[in-house]
């Protein structure tokens, strides 16, 4: 695990830290600089990690959306978490579908729910919402005007 930490440190905002697995559920946690997420994922991909999922979390008071990349190594049985913070409106994140083809659907889903556009992702058509969906339901400010617009 230490070889990965040394490779990740130059790419991350502050040095990656270890968390206790029984308390949190993963081993390594790193906040990555937004532009370097592809290199960070490449480090973990070369080490043999698979991408489990990409989670979007909306922090309106801090004014940004956090993308959490869960990676898992089946032989070493270790979990690593990469985090990226991007601006709430109109910000672009980098797509890692070139490394993990499975990431394309997770990124389309993050675009569905949070409106995050991924540079390098082929199509941004809604994955789970209707084809003409222009609303992003999981953003915290969505609940307010939900009732008047979409009740049928």
């Amino acid at each position, binding site marked *: 695990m230490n070889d990965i930490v040394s490779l990740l440190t130059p790419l991350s905002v502050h040095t990656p830290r270890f968390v206790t697995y*029984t*308390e*949190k*559920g*993963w081993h390594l946690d790193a906040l990555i600089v937004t532009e370097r997420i592809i290199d960070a994922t490449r480090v973990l991909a070369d080490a*043999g990690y*698979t*991408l*489990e*999922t990409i*989670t979007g*979390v*909306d922090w309106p008071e801090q004014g940004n959306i956090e993308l*959490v990349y*869960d990676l*898992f190594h*089946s*032989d070493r*049985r270790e*979990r690593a*978490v990469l985090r990226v913070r991007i601006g709430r409106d109109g910000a672009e994140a980098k797509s890692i579908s070139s*490394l*993990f*083809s*499975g990431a*394309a*659907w997770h990124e389309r889903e993050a675009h569905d*729910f949070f409106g995050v556009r991924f540079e390098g992702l082929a199509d941004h058509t*809604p*994955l*789970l*919402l*209707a084809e003409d969906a222009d609303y992003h*339901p*999981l953003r915290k400010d969505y*609940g307010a005007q939900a009732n008047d617009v979409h009740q049928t």
Partner: protein
Amino acid sequence: MYTKHKEETFVLNLGPQHPATHGVLRIKLTMDGEYIVNAEPVLGYIHRMHEKMAENRTYAQYLPNLSRLDYLGAISFSLAHCLIVEKACGIEVPERATVIRVIMAELNRITSHLLWFGALIVDLGGFTPMLYIFDDREKIIDMMDSITGSRLTFCYLRFGGVSCDIDDTFIAGVRDIVPYMRTRLKMYHALVSRNAILQERLVGIGNITPEMCRSYGASGAVARASGVKHDVRQAEPYSGYERYDFDIPMSTDGDSMARFSVKMEEMEQSLRIIEQAVKNVPAGAYRNGKVPRTLTPAVGDFYQAVETPRGAFGIRMVSDGSNTPYRMKLRSPCLSNLSLLPEVVEGMLLADMLAFMGSLDLVIPEIDR
């Protein structure tokens, strides 16, 4: 003047209402005659906003949602929710409760694998096994129904244990069902697994390489049939699974027949776990009494993975200390297994694609969440 027409392909909708999609999954197929040129799954026809609901439900109110996420493996899904909340709030689970949870989860896994087996054979054209497996399923579900009270969407687990205790008739019933199921599985192998038509339809269809599994994040029997040795019950043991010795059925050919035999073998392993669990169910409380009514978990995010009948289901929960979760991400194993489809299916015959989808064991509400 001879004009060269572009190769005439037509678009076929293997649409929301189709017997072979086991639910409302739509696949837009660009076809050239019987061959598939390009397959594009369209999801969202049963999107039920589980993750949005989590943000205005308390932890206890959210329990029924989990069993409606994947109604065939409902116990494993609510187990994931209970484990992550227990991890976040530091709730102790008594010994007897972990064993009851394992027994119920494995019984649920067998009923889910049985229905997958029946549905796969119906997709290949044989209707009779469907009636046989429902006969077995009803026997197992009767036992679980006598304890949990429901047949499919069990809302049986609580934080810190289970909602009601198991009694001796249940334990005796489980002891009898294990040999009975073994004879039934032997019969299924004799009648179906070595059937020449099944071999013809499944061998060499839908080959998945370990690199594909890694790049798409496939898990469960789909990954294990391609040589990726990963089972959450042994990789990250939870709820006392490290006490039971069972092995993980593996295969390296990666075709539909390998997935078929791996899943059939998994049923036998589940029977082994149940046998060991029922041998000595420890006495004591079936539920931790000191769980506060309104839970206030620690601030921060947590992750919990659980081995469901279809793969590694994970919950990433972000809590802000209040009694409703701030964000609840449900990592669906079927979504990753299905994302393999476009690459595997290219150039395949349509009938083979249906056999391949049957071997993937998809439950659509879990994909659309």
